[in-house]
């Protein structure tokens, strides 16, 4: 049962790929319907298809394989989580999608990125520039350094609208006010002329969200949007992103190292490790039936409120992997508690598991593997 997606794509017959007129993708019902359609017609048009993406950084110590042969899809209006520890390649993946990998020293060396039917890798720089901000919005991790300290926030929000939508300055300012109100900043019109340092951390991140959504993009890339914020603010910001994406039908790729956040926000999750996707599937499936020891480690390491006090926090033993000389073995094998010889020789493929859409990269949990059947 290890059919790959390519093998699934047998027929070329036209399939219903659009929702009926009266059903919006923003509703629960609409999303379920879209899922069914997508599952039934695997080659229907998706918002984003990434195939064999590899991004590398050329340093004097060697070539860092930050993103190594990564493939995934994203549907219109869907929220996908990219979860993993620091350095696993999730941020670089997002930057690669908009071709903002800093060069030097980084470069996308291979792969296909099809966004809304457009082959991103074949676009000229100018065409790519027109995509950014207009169809793809980006939220960065640290709102303090990501906002220009010498420009008023109203200007920074209106900029995208003026450039991509060609609206007048006044219309852009109105839109900025509208967006600021939407993201929950009181007295928006008065605060248009204020500078970033006059806002608190949580408010600054709301401003960033407003900037990212200025042109009503189809995709929102949120790179650890709450990591730099207080815990109490985190929930507010995440809820804001969720409600806005639902309201506007914006697809979201949420990058985080925090599984709890992914659980609350995403429809599907990709778990990344050492530049590879090691498990992917619907969020419930991954949380209830994780199929990869790394995922177990991540889940097990979450402190739980119902544990006895005094139990030691569980960690995943070992050191983060070396991305410069990845060998042929499973990249998690040095740290895995269930490792067998096979793992140290050959890296497993991302293969299907019981639930539809659930795939994992582990010899042990494959059908016939030494952990199959057990948790």
């Amino acid at each position: 049962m290890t059919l790959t997606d390519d093998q699934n794509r047998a027929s070329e017959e036209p399939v219903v790929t659009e929702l009926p007129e009266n059903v919006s993708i923003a509703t629960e019902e609409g999303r379920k319907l879209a899922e069914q359609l997508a599952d039934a017609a695997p080659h229907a048009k998706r918002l984003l298809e990434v195939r064999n993406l590899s991004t590398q950084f050329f340093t004097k110590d060697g070539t860092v394989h930050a993103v190594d042969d990564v493939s995934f899809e994203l549907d219109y209006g869907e929220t996908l989580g990219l979860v993993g520890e620091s350095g696993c390649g999730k941020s670089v993946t997002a930057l690669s999608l908009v071709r903002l990998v800093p060069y030097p020293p980084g470069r996308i060396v291979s792969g296909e990125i099809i966004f809304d039917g457009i082959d991103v890798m074949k676009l000229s720089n100018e065409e790519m520039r027109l995509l950014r901000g207009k169809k793809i919005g980006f939220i960065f991790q640290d709102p303090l350094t990501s906002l220009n300290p010498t420009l008023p926030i109203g200007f920074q929000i209106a900029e995208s609208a003026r450039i991509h939508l060609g609206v007048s300055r006044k219309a852009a300012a109105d839109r900025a006010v509208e967006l600021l109100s939407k993201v929950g900043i009181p007295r928006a019109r008065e605060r248009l002329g204020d500078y970033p340092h006059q806002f608190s951390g949580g408010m600054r991140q709301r401003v960033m969200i407003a900037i990212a959504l200025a042109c009503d993009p189809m995709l929102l890339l949120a790179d650890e949007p709450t990591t730099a914020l207080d815990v109490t603010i985190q929930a507010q910001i995440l809820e804001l992103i969720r409600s806005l994406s639902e309201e506007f039908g914006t697809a979201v790729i949420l990058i985080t190292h925090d599984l709890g956040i992914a659980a609350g926000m995403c429809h599907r999750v990709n778990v990344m490790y050492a530049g590879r996707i090691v498990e992917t599937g619907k969020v419930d499936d991954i949380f209830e039936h994780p199929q990869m020891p790394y995922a177990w480690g991540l889940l097990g390491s979450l402190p739980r409120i119902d544990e006895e006090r005094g139990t030691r926090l569980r960690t995943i033993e070992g050191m983060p992997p070396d991305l410069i000389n990845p060998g042929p073995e499973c990249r998690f094998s040095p740290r895995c508690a269930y490792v067998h010889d096979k793992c140290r020789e050959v890296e497993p493929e991302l293969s299907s598991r019981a639930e539809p859409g659930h795939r994992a990269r582990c010899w042990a949990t494959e059908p016939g593997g030494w952990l199959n059947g057990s948790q």
Partner: protein
Amino acid sequence: MATRTATIDAAPLRTRPTSLWRDAFSRLIRNRLAIVGGIIVLTLLVLAVFGPYLAPYPYDQQNIDQLARHGNLPLGPGVEGHLLGTDALGRDLLSRLFDGARISMTVAFVVQAVVLLIGVPVGALAAWFGGRIDQYLMRITDVVYAFPDLLFIILLSVAFRETFFGQALDGLLLIFVAIGIVGWVGMARLVRGQLLSLKEQEFVEAARAIGVSDFKIVTRHLLPNAIGPMIVAVTLGIPGAILAEATLGFLGIGVQRPRASWGVLINDGSLWMRVSPHMVIFPAIAIALALLSFTFLGDGLRDALDPKLKGKQ
């Protein structure tokens, strides 16, 4: 379902552990400009110390007879065995340049010594005691800082030239004091800044708790950590001192004649520019080399000691 602790093959460490200084040194070596600067600095130092023995002629020897053979004009480069020519009084330019190097290097290092002697204690006291003492000291430094350097140096030189003090060491003593007095302020500010940030760290509290005396804490624990920026500041401050000395020489209120400060050589040369441009060009090159070499070396030291500032891979 817990993850059993697994045996780990610890990945071998990729680099040898090194000290701060060794790291900095290896970074410095890789900076070619800094190396060139360093070599020139060393050359100047050698000239400064051994100049009188290395020079082909005494710097004040006037070879009038040679001039007479060539129309009583300064000799050009290569004439009569003078590699760089002579000045209007027949004095060998190369030898005079050596003397100028001696003067410049002496001024440079003595002034920096003065700067350290005054600036470091002032900065350290201000940082350590804080409060009122800090305020007073900083007010004083602010006022001294507001007085334009060159004006003050010129004033001092003019006022005291004729005194015994001003004549000492061919006028060099006066120059040391004048340039040093305006120069210590920057060092004091630097030391104060460094110590203020270090003072807040926990090891200071720990040392105090053990009963280490204030003086020892400052001298043994705090100051050594600030040595890096201090070295950089000293190196980058030298071009300013060399420039000030040359300017004084040019204005005629610096080192006493017949000593050959580079500034004096330029002044002399400016009178003969039409016929003997070499009298201006060679001292100009000498000054340029001195200024550039210390600047490159200082920049290299700064990058080596704090690579975060540079950010280059």
